């Protein structure tokens, strides 16, 4: 099976399932094997559970535009019955998929034989009650809803509300609120499109509902600001309840200041008290109670600050990296180049750079910390900035909601790392 570039990675609420979306519009779901008592060392590993084609390329004839089938985001719905549900979206259309298992099938029909052919009634001499017999597990996926025509611009985020009934979808200029059961209409709750497009100065880059307060959501902008909105305050949440913005450091000003301050991802902490944002060079932790500036800023790859022109030229400066919290909100993670990803421990203030590569991911291999040298003393395994491979970028990462298991998407490879030992990260 052809493996396409992975475009999104998401654990479900229990961490049992891991969904990935790719550029070809496919979704692959992995399931964690239950830990075996016989082999306690093989703590649940992830196997492919289901694969299905979520979106197909479309062509908008009116605009002569092709709509990419690439899956931008996947969000799981909280599980409410035996079935699992998730939302997957491309640039324009969101779909609700239901994933069910079938592990039994009825046998012993009276009118049909084993192959389903009608029996000759003259041969039926007695009646039997069909019984359910076990069968090999089959995972069935079916599209339950298609939420189309809600967006003019490209959808960048979806987020399921804690009320489990609604969700929002955000594009460059608007955010819509949908009800999971209603597909023919949505409610526009944010609209930053100026009357005159010439006056456009910023776009929405990401948005998310608060994990506990179903009336609160945040959206980030290309200017580096965050706006927390309260849906109870007004129908159209153009006026934010809180605006989180850090004043720009004038000494860092360059042609590319605006680009690198654009927020590429925003995530609420599990506690709901903090927000994590990622811009091109840093990750920042914001306290919902303090709008003036982030409470923590971590440099992801500051050595790129002097290379911005080249990164602009090769388009890398537009890469949108995601960020993630661990289950206890004590460690944050984000990707970088050369298949490196970084983790920052908020308590110890220690950070580590790891690499997702075939060599480093032999089963049970321990990831070795990597280092990028920026001149000065160079250690043996250091990599110099100029030899970083900028085509190997880790844009999408996910952290298991409860355990130290991380999923790293490196172009078209998915790496899953488990921390078997209680490392000093905690």
């Amino acid at each position, binding site marked *: 099976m052809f*493996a396409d570039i992975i475009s999104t990675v998401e654990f479900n609420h229990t961490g049992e399932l891991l969904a990935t979306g790719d550029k070809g519009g496919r979704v692959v779901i*992995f399931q964690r094997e239950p830990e075996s008592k016989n082999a306690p060392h093989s703590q649940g*590993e*992830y*196997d*492919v559970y*289901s*694969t299905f084609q979520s979106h197909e390329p479309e062509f*908008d004839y*009116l*605009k002569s535009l*092709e*709509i*990419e089938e*690439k899956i931008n985001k996947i969000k799981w719905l909280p599980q409410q019955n035996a079935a699992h549900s998730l939302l997957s979206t491309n640039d324009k259309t969101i779909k609700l998929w239901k994933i069910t298992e079938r592990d039994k099938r009825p046998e012993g029909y009276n009118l049909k034989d084993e192959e389903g052919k009608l029996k000759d009634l003259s041969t039926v001499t007695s009646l039997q009650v069909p019984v359910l017999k076990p069968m090999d*597990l089959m*995972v069935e996926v079916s599209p339950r809803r298609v939420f189309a*025509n809600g967006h*003019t*611009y*490209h959808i960048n985020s979806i987020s399921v509300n804690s009320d489990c009934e609604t969700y929002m979808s955000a594009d*460059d*200029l608007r955010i819509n609120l949908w009800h999971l059961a209603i597909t023919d*209409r949505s409610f526009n709750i944010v609209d930053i*499109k100026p009357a005159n*497009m*010439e006056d*456009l*100065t*910023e*776009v929405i880059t990401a948005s998310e509902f608060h994990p506990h307060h179903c009336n609160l959501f945040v959206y980030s902008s*290309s200017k580096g600001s965050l706006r927390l909105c309260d849906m109870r305050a007004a129908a159209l949440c153009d006026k934010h309840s809180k605006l989180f913005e850090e004043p720009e450091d004038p000494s860092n000003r360059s*042609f*590319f200041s*605006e*680009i690198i301050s654009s927020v590429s991802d925003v995530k609420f902490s599990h506690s709901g008290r903090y927000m994590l944002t990622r811009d091109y060079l840093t990750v920042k932790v914001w306290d919902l109670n303090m709008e003036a500036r982030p409470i923590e800023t971590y440099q992801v790859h500051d050595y790129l600050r002097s*290379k911005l*022109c*080249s*990164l*602009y*030229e*090769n*388009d890398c400066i537009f890469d949108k990296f995601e960020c993630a919290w661990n289950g206890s909100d004590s460690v944050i993670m984000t990707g970088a180049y050369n298949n490196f990803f970084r983790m920052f421990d908020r308590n110890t203030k220690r950070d580590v750079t790891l690499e997702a590569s075939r060599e480093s*991911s*032999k*089963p*049970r291999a321990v990831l070795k910390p990597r280092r990028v040298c920026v001149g000065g003393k160079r250690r043996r395994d250091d990599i110099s900035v*100029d*030899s*970083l*491979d*900028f*085509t*190997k970028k880790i844009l999408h990462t996910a952290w298991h909601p409860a355990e130290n298991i991380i999923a790293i998407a490196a*172009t*078209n*490879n*998915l790496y*899953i790392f488990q921390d078997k030992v209680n490392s000093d990260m905690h």
Partner: protein
Amino acid sequence: ARRQSRFSSGVFTDRGSTPRGELVGTSCSRLSFGTWAGAHRIVSISLGKIYNSRVQRGGIKLHKNLLVSLVLRSARQVYLSDPCPGLYLAGHPGAPAPPQQPEESAAGPPAGWGEPPPPAGRAAWPEPEPQPERPAVPEVPRAGDSEPAATVTAAGDTLQGGEAEAPEAAWRRVEGPRETAVGGAGGPAEVSGVFPEGPEAARGPCGCPPGDEDNLSAAPRVDGCRAPRPAAAEPPASPPVCARKRGAGWVGGGPADCPAPGSTPLKKPRRNSEEQPGGAAAAAEEEQEEEMETGNVANLISIFGSSFSGLLRKSPGGGREEAEGEESGPEAAEPGQICCDKPVLRDINPWSTAIVAF
């Protein structure tokens, strides 16, 4: 799908390796931001990106284009602050084509830039007059509404840093040293005298890079923009940009390159139509307008219009017709160019023609 067999922990799927992408540090790093050369290079690169965005799968990405336009604006400020823009020059028709290497191009600039522009060329430029960044000129918003890449395409085309071979090669032939100055890709015309002086917004969406008209086929969809002939050849009197506001700026030929103000209303009402939910057709139409309205476009016009105005059309109609004939092939796909020659089409919003073509 049936549950598949257990995978080893770690990697799922592998698709082989991708070419190693290392930092292209050379050409960029040699130019510091504060310099005019650096700003110019950045503008060139930016134009190229906007041009490319036009043909990207999935449609124009508003976010990226907005960011690029912000970079352009910053770079433009450096441009404008340069006290000696005149060092820039008109190309030498006979100059040998510079090598493709961006590094070499970057190293090239001094040669090209050191030459003063032909006095006649400078005189051609209208007196600078202060222009608001976004004048309330009809074309501007309209241009803003439409296909952003249209203006920039021509410029961007050759600014690919070596990717677009035909256009680049074509431009180089004409531009000579000037293109080296741009950094390898054969940048937009540096009729430097224009940029610093000229009002941006007043200029039409003529971000066309310079180039011989013969080679215009390489510069697609430049509505109303013609590559300027080398300064020596061109009648100096005609300013390359359409001076909407100033009207009198033209010598030898009316504001041919600029969409007539009167044509604006054709598009404007549609552009500003309220978006309504539901109604597939209506929504689609509004969506269509909206989709085309990537707001940075107008910014781009104002940014580039003056400087990269190579366009020109100042050559006598005969010359142009010839060029047009040569481009008849590509022009089938690039009506923008046809537009600038046919008087009738001249008045049509170049953006809309680009859209139609698209």
